[in-house]
């Protein structure tokens, strides 16, 4: 173990969906101050893994442990995990019609901090986050994700991250659906929000986002297993050669 503190750890995690084992034994660690990229082709199980870490009731944990700050959280419901500082930026955020962005944010902030934050203080923080993410303040009154463009949805996810100040943020394909300017803003936001005490797992299958956020480590997930881990240079290799060369090693491993 390293000297820096472990924030999030998976130990032998196996996950089933409708009786089928999709994640087949994953060990993963995120330490304080780290940014870890989780890459892999479509259908490799990346979203399944981060949704399960967050506590999605539709995924069944078949085995293994999930630790947040050294404490087992695999039996806790999603809201308790969130209040302990875990956050999931969704790949496809659902809409909550009629409930404004500001209302969701305020309810979430109060829940996360375990106390009622004053309206004035809350507004101040929300406005600061709007400015950082280049969001029009009118956004606050709109129904959350109701009629949002793809880019607006992703900004809204990072906006929630900004106000909730999670210890561990799991960002699921936050780069997809963004044009280059939005990508820069969102990446910049994530960078500003991560510090020496927090950690981020970036789920992506492109290099784009990682051009703006340098990961400390990169894991490649294929067919429910981590098949390769490395430093930032692994991203370049994947960008050049795709995932094909890794598929071979998966086959070899399975034969072994």
């Amino acid at each position, binding site marked *: 173990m390293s000297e820096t503190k472990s924030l999030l750890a998976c130990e032998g995690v196996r996950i089933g969906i409708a009786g089928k084992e999709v994640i087949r034994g994953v060990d993963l660690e995120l330490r304080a101050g780290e940014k870890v990229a989780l890459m892999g082709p479509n259908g490799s199980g990346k979203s399944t893994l981060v949704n399960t870490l967050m506590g999605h009731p539709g995924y069944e944990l078949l085995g293994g442990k999930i630790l947040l700050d050294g404490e087992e959280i695999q039996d806790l419901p*999603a809201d308790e995990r969130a209040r302990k500082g875990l956050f999931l930026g969704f790949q496809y955020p659902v809409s909550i019609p009629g409930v404004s962005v500001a209302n969701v944010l305020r309810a979430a902030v109060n829940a996360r901090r375990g106390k009622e934050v004053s309206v004035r203080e809350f507004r101040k923080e929300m406005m600061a986050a709007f400015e950082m993410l280049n969001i029009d303040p009118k956004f606050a009154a709109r129904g959350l994700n109701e009629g949002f463009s793809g880019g607006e949805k992703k900004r809204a996810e990072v906006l929630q991250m900004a106000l*909730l100040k999670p210890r561990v943020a799991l960002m699921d394909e936050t780069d997809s659906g963004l044009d280059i300017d939005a990508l820069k803003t969102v990446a910049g936001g994530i960078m500003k929000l991560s510090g020496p005490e927090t950690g981020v797992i970036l789920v992506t299958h492109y290099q784009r986002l990682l051009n703006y956020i340098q990961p400390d480590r990169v894991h490649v997930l294929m067919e429910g297993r981590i098949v390769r881990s490395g430093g930032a240079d692994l991203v370049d290799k994947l960008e050049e050669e795709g995932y094909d060369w890794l598929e071979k090693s998966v086959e070899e491993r399975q034969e072994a």
Partner: protein
Amino acid sequence: MATPETKKKPTKAPKQQIDIRDDYAEKWGFRDPEEYFHKGAKGISHEVVEMMSRMKKEPDWMRRKRHEALDIFLAKPMPTWGNTDLLGQIDFEDIYYYIRPMSEQGRSWDEVPENIKKTFDRLGIPEAERKFLAGVSAQYESEVVYHSVQESLTEQGVVFMDMDSGLREHPEIVEKFFGSVIPPTDNKFAALNSAVWSGGSFIYVPPDTKVEIPLQAYFRINAENMGQFERTLIIADKGARVHYIEGCTAPVYTTNSLHSAVVELIAMDDAYIRYTTIQNWANNIYNLVTKRAMAHKNAVVEWVDGNIGSKLTMKFPCVYLVGEGARGEILSVAFAGQEQHQDAGAKIIHAAPRTSSTITSKSISKNGGRSSYRGLVKVHPQATDCKTSVQCDALILDPESRSDTYPTMEIDADRVQIEHEARVSKIGDEQIFYLMSRGLSEDDARTLIVNGFIEAFTKELPMEYAVELNRLIEMEMEGSVG
């Protein structure tokens, strides 16, 4: 004594209601000791009507109207549509038709008997009056016990008083309009109300007078087996403007009470009336109400109708668009919990050209509750170039609950633009997970989603009422999981 012909008298009181608003009993469902000026015997008869009218020292024409209405009530069968099982359980002989809590109405809260004043204090009425109302009327059982209106309104000629005082002080207006929108022959319960009406509001707003701050009436039932039959008549003269709000609560009893109001609105040319209701009756109350408005040339009438309480509500606010260019808007929310049936809806009659209407109905059913939307849009042949839009959304929170839609459209004119949309939805698991991943408990997540569902309604309420309604929903939603 005459007896209504359709009576399925239960041998015992109906079984006890399980109240799902857990703290309803504490917050609104408490009861006062009965120290009344007058409490007659149970049951309905010409003697009761005669006694009421004499006690109120009414003119002969009103006394005769009451007797005629009673005959109509007795002759009319019970409705054969709607929830006939629940309707059949009403025992008209087991109801007090007239309870007069005090001999004279109070003009200040000091004149109101202590325990009644305390009740309205607990309900927050004097506080609301101080903060954001231009006039307040508080009805307790059959009579308005407290009434006040801002002097500036009186100086402008605005009349806001209880209906009995209206009859005494403005007999010519009352005689002209009383029953002109809803005659006693309209339906059995309108007939009953016309026979035994007591209390309610009388409002007259003179031409071009704008009452910008809402007027409010609060209706409280205290006695067991009470029948409350308030009668409201609102007239907005040419170019006038008024917003009226009504609220209501009652103690929780094991036996049933009946609330059967008649509300008539008349919006003259270019007038505007908004009528807002937050109905929060205890779950042992039958709430069978007839509400109808006449909208003349270019007038606007809006019904904003929220139904949360009661055992059975049957209420279909209606607007007759009789003048060219008139507009009607009906926005309703119904929340049906355990052993509740909210049979609510809207009726719009286009009887003049270039009239327009919007109906928005939102219903939520939970814990086996049932909500129905029953609507009618009728366009008469002469009403060309009309526009109407109907949207009804139902949210069903569990498999035991039920939602029905009975929309009717009768379009007999040319060049009519019609939109109709109906949706039934459930709260999605992904929505709940999303909000839980932000730290909200499952209950809070559901409540937030429900509040969002009815946001189109709450945003039309004055701030204080919107907050109150959201709080009510929150209480309804508590413990809705597992």
